[in-house]
């Protein structure tokens, strides 16, 4: 049997889905860890990014942060954080993943505010709005396409990276792949491939779903900006 057939057989076994530690359990873990990490990332990155963008300062800081996280291996962060005060278990994994969610969220929040037409900002000032009012009532709504694009990039990245949590026994769908490798390729080849398909499917699914949500939350007049923002978000990841 070749690996593909083995994978189909493995996926067709209902017990592989419903057993403790089966696909459904792992999927639940994967999604809950990722959601917590993205949420934490948003809580940190959005206020900071919006504020930096509003103040028009710290562009260098944003670039520096994304470059630094690019160089730090995920594996290192996943193994180091449990040894700090965070302790073993979920919190450490969630924080490690959140660190990788911050750069796209931060970069997009920052650009989102910076790209607001200066004349709009001037007009708001001229109407007597205070700094916070300008941020809350003018810049924030106009930055929403960018925030959404950053959210999507970050979420997909976190879902993809959460597969690595298995190295520190953090659970998630990566566990299926690692156990498969533990069985050796001849025996576990199907399980490895099936795990890979599940992880990849989840990542692509999240990407498509959030793309749809992004379209829904963006008001029609801003749709064109949204497409630009999507490109920017991709650029923020590849750094160009």
């Amino acid at each position, binding site marked *: 049997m070749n*690996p593909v057939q083995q994978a189909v057989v493995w996926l067709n076994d209902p017990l592989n889905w419903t057993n403790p530690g089966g696909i459904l359990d792992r999927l639940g873990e994967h999604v809950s860890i990722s959601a917590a990490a993205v949420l934490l990332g948003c809580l940190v990155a959005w206020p900071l990014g919006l504020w930096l963008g509003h103040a028009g300062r710290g562009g260098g800081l944003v670039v520096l942060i994304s*470059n630094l996280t*690019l*160089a*730090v*291996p*995920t*594996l*290192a962060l996943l*193994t*180091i954080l*449990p*040894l700090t005060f965070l302790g073993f278990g979920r919190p450490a994994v969630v924080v490690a993943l959140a660190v990788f969610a911050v750069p796209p969220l931060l970069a997009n929040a920052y650009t989102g505010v910076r790209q607001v037409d200066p004349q709009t900002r001037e007009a708001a000032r001229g109407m007597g709005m205070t700094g916070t009012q300008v941020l809350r009532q003018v810049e924030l709504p106009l930055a929403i396409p960018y925030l959404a694009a950053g959210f999507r990039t970050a979420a*997909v990245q976190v*879902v*993809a*990276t959460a*597969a*690595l949590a*298995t*190295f*520190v026994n953090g659970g998630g769908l*990566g566990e299926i*792949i*690692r156990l*498969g*490798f533990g069985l050796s*390729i001849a025996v576990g*080849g199907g399980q*490895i*491939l099936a*795990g*890979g*398909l599940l*992880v*990849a499917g989840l*990542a*692509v699914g999240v*990407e498509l779903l959030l793309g749809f949500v992004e379209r829904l939350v963006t008001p029609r007049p801003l749709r064109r900006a949204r497409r630009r923002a999507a490109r920017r978000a*991709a650029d923020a990841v*590849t*750094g*160009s």
Partner: protein
Amino acid sequence: MSFRLSYRADPGNPWFTWQYVRDNSDTVLAALRDHTTLTLRAVLIATLIAVPLAVVAYWFRPLTGPILALTGVLYTVPSLALFAFIAPYLGIGVATVLSVVVLYALLVIVRNTVAGLNQVPAEVREAAEGMGYGRWGRLLRVELPLALPGILTGLRLATVSTVALITVGVVIGRGGLGQIIFAGFNNNFYKAQIMTGTLLCVLLALVLDLLLVGVGRLLTPWLRGRVG
């Protein structure tokens, strides 16, 4: 009495000690060498694939979208899943690690190279054409040199992320410095070992990045002195 003595001799678990580095220099250096050669080979292979792809995307506009989309999808697939797809066929070895890393590096290099080529001003292209350059001559003598800053940006990003990505290779036992980090974790959470592996990873990324910046300055003397 002897109990207390042995208790006092407990070395503790510091975040970093030179003791560890000295005692295990062989293992650490071997892992570092492994990591470095893997990175260099991966980036070289990725460049050899990505730059021609980018040129194809540049010459045949309708292909730009599909090529970028394809490399983009490859980039969305989680690294561990990519290992899972490739390992059953290529087995447990360098070939698998290299393929995964190369597939990842493709997007960054293709994207930046296309961007670099698109930045070549139309006047320059027309001037080259007017001077009698053919398609290939123009590409090799005019467009690629002018796109070098873009290509180098892509190479730098690809190199840095490759250094980080190779550590995921621990899943098949070929993770370079990742092996050190992972072994430290399994070794009763030996912090000094984890830290040594991590620091070397970051340092390697930094050194290779600086090297590429240097190469870039040598290759693009006309940009020197300009801000950017």
